[in-house]
């Protein structure tokens, strides 16, 4: 509590942030919704007027939508599984008494600071390329036929790249949580005769549950919007094999210039994100006071 004057001043000080974010949130969203009910194509200016649900039917009815939806789920799910399990494992390893912990942390966290297109391109060319990628060399050394990863397993390749980028984030957060588990708590457990496996399940995992939830939820926000990695590697192909919802909207709206259909896709993406956000807000909100 402070004085009325301070409170009034506080509102004034908050106003720019609130107004700016309000505009940012409402104006484009309302426009998207509006466009999604219009016939609006940049290629065919003749096509105008109210479209009803046509754009939605067109977008959702197209097989590419189902595929993009499945791809989105596979991409998010695959990356989450790899990063949470891998991250827990690496965090536990880094939390052991080892030499060079500081440098190790720096090495492990580095991929997170690599911008998405760079990450995608160095994987695409330096590692996954059948001719001169590292995996190509390895396969040849083992006497196997090199695999053209992006042609044969496009979505899987993208999952690998994205997982590489996000594994450090998961690791760092889980490690931070792990290190906040007090030494006393562990020692008490040891005194109580808990062995390593029991300690892991009954002491460490419950303590980590909150951090893991947060990792999952925050990564999900970002993973739903994966774009650049697809754009610079497969371009969504072959066909729609590596197109997710975000990229589908871009393809329809910007590349094919169909504003109406693209907007309908955008609205669907917003709805999906909101379902996810709902759970995220509840989890983070609960932890807010802690």
């Amino acid at each position, binding site marked *: 509590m402070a*004085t009325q*004057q301070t409170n009034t001043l506080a509102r004034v000080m908050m106003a720019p942030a609130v107004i700016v974010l309000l505009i940012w949130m409402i104006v484009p969203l309302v426009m998207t919704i509006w466009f999604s009910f219009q016939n609006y194509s940049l290629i065919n200016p003749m096509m105008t007027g109210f479209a009803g649900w046509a754009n939605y039917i067109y977008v959702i009815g197209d097989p590419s939508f189902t595929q993009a939806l499945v791809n989105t789920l596979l991409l998010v799910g695959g990356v989450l599984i790899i990063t949470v399990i891998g991250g827990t494992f690496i965090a536990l390893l880094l939390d052991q008494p080892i030499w060079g912990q500081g440098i190790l942390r720096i090495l492990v966290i580095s991929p997170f600071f690599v911008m998405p297109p760079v990450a995608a391109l160095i994987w695409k060319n330096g590692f996954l390329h059948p001719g001169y990628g590292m995996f190509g060399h390895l396969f040849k050394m083992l006497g196997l036929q090199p695999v053209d990863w992006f042609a044969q397993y496009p979505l899987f390749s993208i999952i690998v790249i994205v997982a590489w980028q996000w594994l450090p984030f998961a690791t760092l957060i889980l490690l931070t949580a792990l290190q906040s588990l007090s030494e006393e708590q562990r020692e008490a457990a040891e005194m109580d005769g808990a062995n390593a496996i029991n300690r892991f399940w009954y002491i460490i995992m419950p303590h980590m549950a909150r951090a893991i939830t947060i990792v999952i939820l925050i990564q999900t926000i970002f993973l739903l919007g994966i774009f650049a990695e697809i754009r610079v590697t497969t371009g969504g192909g072959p066909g729609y094999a590596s197109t997710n919802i975000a990229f589908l909207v871009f393809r329809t709206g910007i590349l094919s210039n169909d504003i109406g259909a693209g907007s309908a896709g955008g609205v669907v993406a917003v709805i999906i994100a909101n379902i996810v956000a709902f759970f995220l807000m509840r989890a983070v909100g609960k932890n807010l006071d802690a």
Partner: protein
Amino acid sequence: MGSISLEHVNKSFGDVQVIPDISLDIKDGEFVVFVGPSGCGKSTLLRLIAGLEDTSSGTILLDGVDMTDAPPARRGLAMVFQSYALYPHMSVRDNIAFPLKMAKLPKEVIDQKVDYAARTLNLSSYLDRRPRALSGGQRQRVAIGRAIVREPKAFLFDEPLSNLDAALRVNMRLEITELHQQLKTTMIYVTHDQVEAMTMADRIVVLNAGNVEQFGSPLDLYKKPANRFVAGFIGSPRMNFVDGAEAAKYDAHSIGVRPEHFVLTRIPAPGSWEGVVSVAEQLGSDTFLHVQVGEFGLMTIRTDGEETFSHGDDVYLTPDATRIYRFDADGKAL
């Protein structure tokens, strides 16, 4: 000048009324202490005067000018916080100079005033240190220095000594009293500690649940408590209270006798109460006896340290008839 008047000041936080209705007149140059149990609204009242909180209704006058809605920066008051609230990123010099900088005084004047304050408070050799490199007592001095340089209309202290150890507290108490005698500026001082209240104050405000129970000089409060609450709150150890038939003898609902106002004997005396020593606390100069007196319960008696008593001794207490406080059913003094 620095007179402070509160007229029907009321403060609520949401639905909770913390201060129902207070009117007070504090004269220029007076040292006034607010005492009362924890949570009774001492800090709130001080913050209302400072302007750090709004009044819900009522008026606050400084030197006769209505300042109810003025922000703290405009009131010309200085405050010393319990936590000291020094600026950790500034040197001692800059801490003390800060209010002067805010007042946009020229640099030479600032330097001169800071040096003067530092000399007064024995801080000259620490001027370039950060607060974190000072002891608790030194920090307190810096906080006081920061308050005095701007020559405020009045000083507000919120339990400034409660984070210090006992010996230092006595020293700082004397220093603040001395400072008051030297500056002759109005001071309002909030404390839990009744020794501080009794020794420092010109007048004491006893607060209880946001109400002023009594406002008077320390000896007034001791000798003529307005009610049972004040009688119990002022004086250490606490006054002993007796209700019922014994009180009725004195034509009162309850009576109170201070621990120092008993005559203690080993043999019965006329009008004495019989009891058994439960605990004897020997301080050397005094001994506090906790005596179980029949249906009256546990009473505290103060004796000199000459005679020793031990658990189980039978004793007889004779209250000094001229110093028995009488209260009616509402706790009002008769």
